[in-house]
């Protein structure tokens, strides 16, 4: 590979914004036919690099080479025309239009009088779809496709040009395991055709599974490139965060108390059925399963967002009925939701106001909000959770993902809940903050909170949970203790291959 010409090369790219040096002399090269991981914590410069390559930003210094030619990317369209294609984390498709129209949007083939040449359009599209081995056709309405298939449409769109380099930005964030397999096959195909792939992800297992080389950015600086086969997670992490990371299993080191929350025969239509579990003070109960297994829906029921169709919820042995989040909060149940930006935070509000939002009615001095009390609550949890922000007046939307998540966690801890439910605690959060949040969850349990953690990442549940509820297709398949659980039996349980509940 060494004497080959890179498909795409950055050389000494510098990009500054008022007060920030977002990219500081970044250089790396993608060879044709290689899968190259670009890694770094949030804010390390990955997105800025992509925007420079995509023609959204112009670099202050440095050169982009496509093949051996120094190139200036004038606009996103220009970048695409030059063979640099991006598959974004957030999809940008028109749901009401067909697959074919989405793929050729802006460049639809035309007949006389400017009418769309539908025959050519569908024929071309079907040819591309064939390569991707997908189950839908050119005429399918995009809104009817699953997220994974919508992503395939984005990829198909990339294939309409003679792509030199394709960037995948967190492509597996919302995919099921089966869908991931298909995606990886597509990537392997592209690779065979000699396309250079840049793969951006926080998920180490994927990085080590599919990439050839790994380039690491930290604080806008290029930190080096490693051959995937010759390195390990530890080395990469250390390069990314500049220190070592503890990923070992945590052992239960404290006493587990009495049952805080008990669920018996809980059902909610088709979403989940006959769910039984209990969580004790001082333990972390993990919920693991595929997307759609019913985990989030159970959390939503406990938090009063969905009414159950059968079964009961008991707190401290007493049956309770919860019809709204306000009911749940009053009973001491808190939910850190899975969609941090959509459900957890008011992004335009400041840190303090976000944190005290659930108790704003209780923090009163006369008819007014007791702002002094709010500030002291904020200060207390900022210190406790090590939230890095210039001050409480900072708008939450300006914080990094990890710090935003800590604001949400702080918001609920300051309510002193008896049960804390955390749905996907580290989604979209960089490795360094991830382990901080894991440690925090462990520590909360040791302080006597009953913690429920819902996660799609196996290392995460294995790392933080004392017991793990494995779910498949709306049913609890098995509850593991930390002694019983192995990666194998857990995977079997969530695939419906074993356990006492039988899949429908």
């Amino acid at each position: 590979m060494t004497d080959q010409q890179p498909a795409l090369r950055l050389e000494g790219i510098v990009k500054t914004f008022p007060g920030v040096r977002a990219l500081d002399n970044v250089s790396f090269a993608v060879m044709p036919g290689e899968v190259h991981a670009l890694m770094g914590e949030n804010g390390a410069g990955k997105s800025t690099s992509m925007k420079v390559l995509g023609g959204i930003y112009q670099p202050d210094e440095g050169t982009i080479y496509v093949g051996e030619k120094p190139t200036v990317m004038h606009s996103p369209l220009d970048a695409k025309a030059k063979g640099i294609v991006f598959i974004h984390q957030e999809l940008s498709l028109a749901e009401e239009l067909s697959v074919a129209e989405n793929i050729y949007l802006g460049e639809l083939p035309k007949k006389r009088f400017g009418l769309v040449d539908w025959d050519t359009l569908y024929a071309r599209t079907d040819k591309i779809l064939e390569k991707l081995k997908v189950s839908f056709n050119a005429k399918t309405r995009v809104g009817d496709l699953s997220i994974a298939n919508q992503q395939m449409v984005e990829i198909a769109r990339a294939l309409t040009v003679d792509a030199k380099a394709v960037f995948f930005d967190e492509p597996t964030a919302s995919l099921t395991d089966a869908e991931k397999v298909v995606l990886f096959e597509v990537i392997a195909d592209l690779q065979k055709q000699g396309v250079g792939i840049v793969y951006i992800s926080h998920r180490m297992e994927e990085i080590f599974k599919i990439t050839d080389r790994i380039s690491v950015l930290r604080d806008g600086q290029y930190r080096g490139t490693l051959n995937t086969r010759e390195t390990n997670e530890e080395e990469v992490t250390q390069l990314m965060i500049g220190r070592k990371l503890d990923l070992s299993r945590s052992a239960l080191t404290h006493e587990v108390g009495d049952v805080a929350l008990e669920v018996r025969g809980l059902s909610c239509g088709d979403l989940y059925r006959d769910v039984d579990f209990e969580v004790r003070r001082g333990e972390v109960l993990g919920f693991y399963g595929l997307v759609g297994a019913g985990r989030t829906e159970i959390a939503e029921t406990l938090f009063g967002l969905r009414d159950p169709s059968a079964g009961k919820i008991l707190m401290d042995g007493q049956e309770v009925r919860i019809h709204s989040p306000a009911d749940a909060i009053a009973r001491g149940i808190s939910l850190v939701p899975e969609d941090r930006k959509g459900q957890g935070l008011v992004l335009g509000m400041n840190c303090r106001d976000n944190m005290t939002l659930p108790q704003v009615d209780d923090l009163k001095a006369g008819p007014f909000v007791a702002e002094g009390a709010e500030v002291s609550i904020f200060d207390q949890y900022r210190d406790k959770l090590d939230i890095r922000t210039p001050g409480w007046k900072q708008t939450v939307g300006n914080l990094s993902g990890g710090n935003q998540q800590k604001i949400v966690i702080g918001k609920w801890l300051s309510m002193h809940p008896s049960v804390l439910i955390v749905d996907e605690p580290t989604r979209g959060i960089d490795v360094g903050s991830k382990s901080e949040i894991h440690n925090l969850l462990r520590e909360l349990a040791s302080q006597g909170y009953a913690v429920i953690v819902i996660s799609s990442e196996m290392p995460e549940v294995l790392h933080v949970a004392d017991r793990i509820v494995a779910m498949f297709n709306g049913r609890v398949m098995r509850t593991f203790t930390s002694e019983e659980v192995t990666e194998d039996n857990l995977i079997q349980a969530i695939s419906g291959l074993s356990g006492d509940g039988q899949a429908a």
Partner: protein
Amino acid sequence: MSKQEIGSFLAKQGILIAFAVFMIGFTLANSRFLDPDNVMGVIRSSAILGVMALGVTFVVISGNLDLSVGSMMSFSTIVVLDLHDKIGPALAIPAMFAMTLCLGAFIGFLVGYLKLNSLIVTLGMLSAIHGLTLTYSGGQNMDIADKEGTWFSVFGQGDALGIPVPILIFLGLAAFLGIMLSKTPFGRKVYAVGGNGTAATFSGIRRARVVFMCYLMSSFCVATAGLIQASRSLGSQNTVGQGLELEVLAAIILGGASLLGGSGTIFKTVIGVLILGFIQNGLLLVGLQFYVQYVVTWVIIILAVWLDIAAKRGRLWSPIA
């Protein structure tokens, strides 16, 4: 300052700069513009619009619209004038407030609890309330029989400490509602619901109730505006509030609130109301026809929306939203 910083400064302060340019221009064109009598006159004539804008500010911050305030104000005015002669002003005023609040509660129920789109609901109510007013009045103008002998004129025509009562009501209500919005738990919840309604729900806030209260607040302000209007003229057409809903929105946007909700303050709305008042007054003083202000109001709204978006993205134009 770099080029980018200058651009973002211009975008952020654009409205104030444009306002300053207008003010200087008007003053040069007509020396009466900054005359204390003229200034007081502008504030006084802005009071009715201002009072309505205070209430709608709550609605807008909560992430909704209220296009019904113009015809609702006509309704309040007609009702209170009619009842004045039938049951006396002391009973007419609370009766009118109660009826207007019922309309607000109805809208609040539809938008808050039934979660219907506020644009559709209030656009429909604009027309429906207009019909209600015409039905009530039989299409006739409403006049108080004894215009000389009623104390009812105090709200629109009176003075206290040398300041016209409408101005006192406007500024007093602004102070009260400003504090409510910025200092009380209710105010905080209005911002949360408008900023991210889902997150507000996930924080245990009863979103429907907050939206409902905002519309109640809006109708209370409309009733107050109707009271001033009725008291000032002691007689009225059925269409007295027509078109005010757009001027109210213009003032709120000029103040810098986002129509998407979650931002804005009472103080900014007051500034927006005054800017609009001075510009309209200035246009009259330089000799333009009254009708020109309909056009100008819309030019101003569009300019304000553009600058608002430009301030957010830091430049005046961008290929991506």
